[in-house]
């Protein structure tokens, strides 16, 4: 276990240093992912010559764990850092501080090749069903991408697995030879989910998976996410701006604002009895029918 806090490296002999350092997360075998005190800062380009460039604290100290088979939702408004957090968890961004441990391994401290190999166990679904599929590739290749990148499987075995996951998300075998533009938004999102599913990952990070879809299609994808969890026991980290969506999918939810979790807990509890002012404002702002 590594902790990027510089003081932690001083060794066990100096007990005061260890005491000062933030406690390292205790890894339970049932814990799929443990995010510990993650910070991510960006520097914006200077606006004026004589002024220091602005430092953006996109994620500013976030800690949470997700148990096996659980679903954790992060909800917040645009610019609150939720998408950056998702990419940090996926190891697609370097951290300014903190650690992300996947099944006890700090993914940001792993050598490139080991991280690559580990990636089969955590996959991602993106927001834009039009932008997240390469328009020049056929469905079969898109869906097979994670195993193509990580495994040395034979062609026919690969094809069999592609067909298997496509069926699991409700698509047909004949869809393998089509290009993404031949599908509607909802079907494309199914393809994206199939791609994330093909390595049988323990964790799927879904960043706004339904916000680009038409309302009537949204429901199909949300149901599919539920079914897949029932069937394969996938663990979810769901990022969304839509409180109702998070409430529908997740057991546990965190409300994020300006890079930090302002409130976190079991979904029902948070929605029924919000404590933080920001959560209350957010809940009050949702236009409801019959309210």
């Amino acid at each position, binding site marked *: 276990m590594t902790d990027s806090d510089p003081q932690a490296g001083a060794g066990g002999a100096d007990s005061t240093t260890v005491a000062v350092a933030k406690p390292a997360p205790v890894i339970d075998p049932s814990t799929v992912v443990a995010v510990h005190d993650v910070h991510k800062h960006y520097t914006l380009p200077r606006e004026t010559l004589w002024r220091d460039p602005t430092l953006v604290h996109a994620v500013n100290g976030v800690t949470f764990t997700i148990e096996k088979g659980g679903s954790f939702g992060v909800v917040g408004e645009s610019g609150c850092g939720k998408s950056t957090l998702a990419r940090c968890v996926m190891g697609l961004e370097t951290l300014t501080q903190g650690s992300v441990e996947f099944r006890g391994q700090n993914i940001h401290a792993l050598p490139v090749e080991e991280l690559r190999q580990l990636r089969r166990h955590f996959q991602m679904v993106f927001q834009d069903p039009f932008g997240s599929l390469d328009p020049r590739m056929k469905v079969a290749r898109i869906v097979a991408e994670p195993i193509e990148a990580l495994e040395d499987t034979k062609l026919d075995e690969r094809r069999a697995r592609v067909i298997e996951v496509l069926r699991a998300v409700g698509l047909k075998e004949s869809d393998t030879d089509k290009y993404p533009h031949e599908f509607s938004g909802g079907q494309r999102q199914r393809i994206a989910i199939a791609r994330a599913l093909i390595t049988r990952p323990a964790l799927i990070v879904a960043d706004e998976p339904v916000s680009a879809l038409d*309302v009537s299609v949204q*429901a199909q994808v949300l149901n599919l996410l539920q079914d897949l969890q029932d069937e394969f026991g996938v663990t979810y980290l769901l990022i969304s701006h839509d409180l109702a969506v998070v409430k529908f999918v997740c057991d546990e939810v965190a409300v994020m604002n300006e890079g930090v979790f302002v409130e976190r807990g079991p979904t029902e509890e948070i929605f029924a009895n919000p404590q933080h002012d920001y959560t209350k404002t957010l809940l009050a*702002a949702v236009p409801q029918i019959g309210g």
Partner: protein
Amino acid sequence: MTLLAVDNLTVTLNTVRGPARAVRNLSFELEKGQTLGIVGESGCGKSLTALAIMGLLPENGWADGTVKLAGENLLTYSEDQMCQVRGNRIGMVFQEPMTSLNPLHTVGRQIAEAMRLHRGVNKAEARTEVLRLLDMVGIPEPTKRINSYPHQLSGGQRQRVMIAMALSCGPELLIADEPTTALDVTIQKQILDLIRNLIEDLGMAMILISHNLGVIYQNVQDVIVMYGGARVESGPTHDVFANLSHPYSQGLFEAVPQIDDTKASRRRLRTIPGTVPELADLPAGCTFQDRCDYVTDACRPTQPPVVQIAAGHNVACLHVDAARKQWAAR
């Protein structure tokens, strides 16, 4: 008094695959000071309806039927006559406040533009008026902001500027096309509250277009639900939402997770099978036939008749009784 009377409005678009009727036989009336919501998914024709009223359809589109503003058919107006209507008698707010403002002009100049055009006010008068408008839409420090460029404002402030612009000539009708879709929920609430209050204070009529049922429910007196270019259900908002009667409106309502559902009660969402139809090949009869649970052969040849099920509450469905029964038993 009837302010706007839309009768048998049909919008046709020329596409690569032939002409597509994006809005078909739409009729509705709007009284002075009344608010109307149009709700539906992408491609249902709600935005094209707004653009047809404004005479701003894309180059490949045209409108048939009549759109009467205070008794005069706008569809017969010349381009010059329409210029007198736009921004003067009808104001419009668009979806994307970022791209809907000219990045090279100050917001003050952009707000003043319509007044200088329609009211012929001079620069100084326009400035006073712009300051008043900025204050009215809740922008802090108007004297400072009047010289700002759009990129210096936040998304919510930009939308406030758009509203100030649309209201600058005191129009009789405001059309707001998805005014909050690009904004966060907290900002959305502020903007919608602002619009609703201003409409009330100024005694204007409004058409609010949205895909969000909650937004429509909370902000307008009457509602039209559109699907595939046609009106499927309409009536007083509370009435319609209390007794959703068209299979599509029911499906739409049930497909959206609600924040006050509990997870146990809604383990699965009801889904509408299939996808939103392509405008170029809409079926001849009811546009919802391919996705409807109640569909019979009678639905296919002609558009279904409009049935009035309560005062002002109309549904275009042959099987409205079956649908209502099923809904009540839910």
